[in-house]
């Protein structure tokens, strides 16, 4: 089978690259094992939120201070700025409304009530530019009865610290009560599915309206829809007060929705999305990757002019740790990983963990290397890349989206 570009990895980075390429007329395939960081989406895309423990107000300006191996440093500040704008347009063209700006971070609120610097936040989700601008008025945090993956008391505690007049309550409807009879069913994706059925959302909205009478703002867990955002729109239309959604513990309903929307978009553009398959190895000639093989299509090679590897970090198995070594398991690409096993970690889980910055080495055009030689038609993108500590920096989504766009642009330029 032959394609213009084959993308290994169907998470945020792989899909963004795939959509960009297919929308420009390329014939693309995405091979996905099914893992995606969007399943634990916070409701916001981070670009660059922190330098150590210091908050970053302007991510573009802060790029100058990054290590030379950092993906943003390789792209350069002006390219990052341009790509960031392109990214916003990219999602807008898909009908995904995001608020925010690359030169001015805003705050999101975490499921445990912490205010965190971020870049783009989903429409209707909690966001504020500064602590001073937090004008919520009398606020009600409303949970769904018995939903344990949303913590109104943690949220309320966080907001009260910012001086917000906060109250906590819960609502339910019969269908959601029935969900509770099986003890493992009360999870965000299941709640969303129940709400998609019949007029469930109508009745729940009535209950919410009742409870939120007299409040200026109502904060709800973000469980309103995994197929589309119609329910969110309905809520906002019907409720008289301000509606703010806050992400829950995984799985993230808006994350699943986004993953599905991206995949659908890619397929609508003619892309081939192969779910549940795994690339096993590649065949190289000189500095070029000629074709790859997958677990499901053993003898049939997949050929392409260009390849993108977007397999993620350890949790999605883009990187693998063995007893005494770290590797990229498909092509054995060069990785940065320092020292013996004991040196990969800090004993305090909240300190900087060296292993988080391990990743695939690339040149400035995002070409990874094998034994020091760049592979000229292969691009590495996303959290697979070296040097970015996405967790400490709050840069995960930004690195994924921008490097994916960059790789796609490079391929299209050729």
């Amino acid at each position, binding site marked *: 089978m032959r394609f213009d570009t084959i993308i290994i990895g169907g998470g945020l980075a792989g899909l963004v690259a795939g959509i960009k390429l297919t929308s420009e007329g390329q014939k693309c395939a995405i091979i996905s094992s099914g893992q995606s*960081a969007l399943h*634990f*989406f*916070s409701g916001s895309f981070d670009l660059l939120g922190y330098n150590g423990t210091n908050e970053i107000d302007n991510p573009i300006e802060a790029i100058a201070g990054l290590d030379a191996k950092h993906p943003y440093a390789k792209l350069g500040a002006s390219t990052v700025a341009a790509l960031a704008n392109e990214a916003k347009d990219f999602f807008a063209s898909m009908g995904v409304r995001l608020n925010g700006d690359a030169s001015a971070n805003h705050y999101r609120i*975490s*499921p*445990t*009530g*912490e*205010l*965190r610097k971020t870049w783009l936040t989903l429409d209707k989700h909690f966001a504020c530019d500064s602590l001073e601008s937090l004008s919520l008025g009398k606020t009600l945090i409303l949970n769904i009865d*018995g939903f*344990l*993956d949303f*913590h109104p*008391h*943690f949220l*309320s*505690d966080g907001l009260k610290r910012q001086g917000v007049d906060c109250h906590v309550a819960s609502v339910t409807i019969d269908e959601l*009560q029935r969900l*509770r*009879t099986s*003890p*493992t069913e*009360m999870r965000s994706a299941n709640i969303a599915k129940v709400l998609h059925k019949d007029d469930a959302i109508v009745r729940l909205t009535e209950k919410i309206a009742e409870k939120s009478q007299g409040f200026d703002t109502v904060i709800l867990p973000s469980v309103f829809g995994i197929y589309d955002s119609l329910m969110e729109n309905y809520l906002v239309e019907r409720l008289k007060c301000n509606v703010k959604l806050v*992400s829950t*513990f*995984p799985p993230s309903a808006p994350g699943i929705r986004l993953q599905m929307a991206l995949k659908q978009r890619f397929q609508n553009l003619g892309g081939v999305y192969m779910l549940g398959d795994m690339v096993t190895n590649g065949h190289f000639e000189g500095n070029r990757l000629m074709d790859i093989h997958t677990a499901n299509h053993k003898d049939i090679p997949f050929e392409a002019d260009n390849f993108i590897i977007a397999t993620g*970090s*350890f*949790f*999605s*198995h883009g990187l*693998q*740790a*063995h*007893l005494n070594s770290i590797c990229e398991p498909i092509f054995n690409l060069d990785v940065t990983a320092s020292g*013996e*096993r*004991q040196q*990969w*970690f800090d*004993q*305090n*889980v*909240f300190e900087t*963990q060296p*292993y*988080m910055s391990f990743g695939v080495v690339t040149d400035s055009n995002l070409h990874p290397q094998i034994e020091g030689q760049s592979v000229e038609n292969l691009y590495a993108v996303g959290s697979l890349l070296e040097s970015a500590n*996405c*967790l400490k920096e*709050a840069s*995960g989504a930004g690195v994924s989206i921008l490097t994916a766009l960059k790789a796609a642009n490079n391929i299209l330029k050729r």
Partner: protein
Amino acid sequence: MLSKNNEYDVIIIGGGATGAGTARDCAMRGLKTLIVERLDFTAGATGRNHGLLHSGARYASTDKESAEECIKENMILRRIASHCVDETDGLFITLPEDDLNFQKSFVEACLQSGIKADIIDPKEALLLEPSVNPELIGAVRVPDGSIDPFRLTISNIVDAQRHGADVLTYHELTDFIFDGTSIVGVKLHDKAGNRTVEYRSKVTINAGGIWGYKIAKMAGATVNMMPSKGSLLIMGHRINNMVINRCRKPADADILVPGDTVCVIGTTSTKVPHEEVDLIRPTADEVDILLREGEKLAPALAYTRILRAYSGVRPLVASDDDPSGRSISRGIVCLDHETRDGISGFITITGGKLITYRLMAEWATDLACKKLGVNAKCQTADICLPGSEKHKDDNAPHTTAYKAAESRHGSLTNKITTGDNYSDSLICECEGVSVGEVNYAINELHVHNMINLRRRTRVGMGTCQGELCSCRAAGLLANSHGCSQRAKEDLASFLNERWKGIAPIAWGESLSEAQFTSWIYEGVCGLSLTNNEDIQ
């Protein structure tokens, strides 16, 4: 409610199995009893061993006295602590690299100590325990088993309280109160209240495990203890159903014990200085040895995910007539400091093993009773621990969570609220822990933080190591404290404590899961460790 005038017949220092057992025994004999623990129950060696219900076979060749104590207590615990015991039986296997002649003398020694030991055909051993190394050339079946030290200790505490004992956790001994050469009480630092409190007693029992060395020193006595560090690994699922031992002289990593949903391989043995007993953690070398040797017992270990690594410190005691420390017994040491050191009102109970905790408690209580002039018979070998009484509840729900809870709490499961959607919803899906069970533990089992909760209920002990359940549990703790800030700090400490056990084995799937956990709690939630003090 603590005693009004802070006066007791006996104060026990140390909330491990021995301390808890002694509190139970003292209280059952009618003594007015207080037990104090500087951290949480089972925070020391009690919670950091194999959880092996020794048959004694391991000691039969070298230490007949210990072996006899083991088998006797083994049989008693099966009766009185049935809800903590898994009667798995054990195998002592001989591998091609071992000397098969050892087997003969081993079996003889077992029989002489009263331990049933049947030589079985290696093929039969493989049928009984399919995970065992198929290359084995010999096998002996013995009455080993596994025991849950957390449940065992808490059950003793619950019963001590039922008999009127008072209980203080997170209270650390800072000094003794003397009257001349007599110890008449203790000064404690109450960690939560950050204040000093005093309690008086006629007899004080030092049941501090390895920390008993310092406690004795504080009292002015020297007990010649050798801290011996042992490291172990918890594997991600229950590979074996029988305990598997190597039939040779005791060495590193030669026991694999099944327990609940997991199994534990151990242990190593290294002497450590007293100053380091609070700082020990498994090293990379120890992990490597445990895996290398463990695979020889059960080859499946090579491709089983490791959940975590941990270390404990054995309180080995050199006999008083051998100050060189060479002659170390695993036997029980009960010291009357009045006759030994001229300090009256003070007893040290140490040495021994988890499985002989009850006998240690009996000896210590016998001595305390003698000092107090109390003539009461020990009944702890005859009366079942709370949870182990015969029970049959026809109305018990048939949910998996209830069954899981019953395996943890035995007859006490009826104290867990069930039957409504809220109480039945699951906090921890790996271990089947419900909201009802968590609330029971919070209300009745001295739970102040997430780590306490884990020890009482197994929340966060399963395959996911607290990935998702810890935040749910923290939510319930926040409700019960009425303080979500404290619960959040507690959650951060809990995750840090989980990480300490994961870091030594963080490769493969363990690292993938650890990264996922960090992404959720530090990334999505923005949690950080504000209070850097270790909570145990």
